[in-house]
């Protein structure tokens, strides 16, 4: 899974979000390291929807502009959990090899 997709799914794990909310949340989750641009976001959302990992939760109009909220599907939650576990296992392995004595780095 690409990092952008992982971060978008993570942003939606806590609840439904609209496009701009996902952008600001991803920025915060990544510690200001990943700044999604609108087109990148909507390309990723389009794919995630096509793969059945997210779905539209609701729509509203704010200041004459359409705002669409997205949420994770059960498939999306499952895939995010599996990916997070995989990343954690990899990170744990790397840390163990960096510090064979078992202490905290």
């Amino acid at each position, binding site marked *: 899974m690409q990092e952008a997709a992982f971060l978008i799914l993570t942003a939606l794990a806590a609840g439904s979000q609209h496009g701009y909310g996902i952008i600001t949340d991803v920025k915060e989750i990544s510690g200001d390291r990943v700044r999604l641009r609108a087109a990148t*976001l909507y390309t990723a959302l389009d794919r995630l929807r096509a793969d059945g990992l997210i779905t539209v939760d609701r729509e509203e109009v704010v200041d004459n502009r359409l705002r669409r909220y997205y949420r994770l599907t059960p498939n999306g939650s499952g895939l995010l959990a599996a990916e997070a576990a995989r990343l954690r296992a990899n990170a744990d392995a790397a840390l163990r090899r960096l510090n064979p004595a078992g202490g905290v780095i």
Partner: protein
Amino acid sequence: MSEASLERSYRRLLACYPPHFRAGQGDEMLGVLMASAGQDQRRPGLLDTLDVLRSAAGMRLRSLRSGPENRGWADGLAMFSVLAPLFLVLSSLLGLVWPLRVAHIVVGRHAGTPARLVVEQRFGWNWHQLLGMSGFRIALTGQVVVAALVLLGLRRLALLAIAGSVVYWLAARYWIPYPLQLLTTSIYLLEAAALTVSPGPRHGRHLVNWGHGVVLLLAAGAVQASTLWIHRHWSGAGQQVGEAKPA
């Protein structure tokens, strides 16, 4: 005022997306673009513009591959991606068995160009005798490899093989009679495009039938016959037909 002109600019950019995407998410994305813009921003930033153009190109490509509105084109390109390499192989094989064998390399004014001489002097390679094979046989082998990869449905490897064949042709200054040269170059270009944008040769393979094979054979025969005719009537002075000799 600046907000209105910024919105117009973004709308123009969004026009690059396929219609079905614009209809579904255009307004929503416009809202995000406007929300992400700076307070006094009057026109889209360079990085945002490039991001939209890249994303729109990707969506159009995907739409061409799988969009319901482009199913006819997608099927046609997928079939072309399978049939075109087979056509080239058939045409070359007919050139091998044709009584006057016109599909041989033409040694002319292009032999011994500086680029070729540098390669030969530096690496000691004679491109026309690579691996003990003549230029025509190497080109034919390239065509067979491309056709085999396409039949196996290996799209990326087929693209690599096409690139390799083109590099060989350019490096070896491998020339064949003009109609075949033009036809082969055009087919390789179209084949590369079809492999890139179509749903792929695996899809095309399921659409091809024996009737297409008969049409291919007839077309390859017609090409060889017309090449022979053109070569007899229009070939210029200074060109010889026959296998290339080492420079």
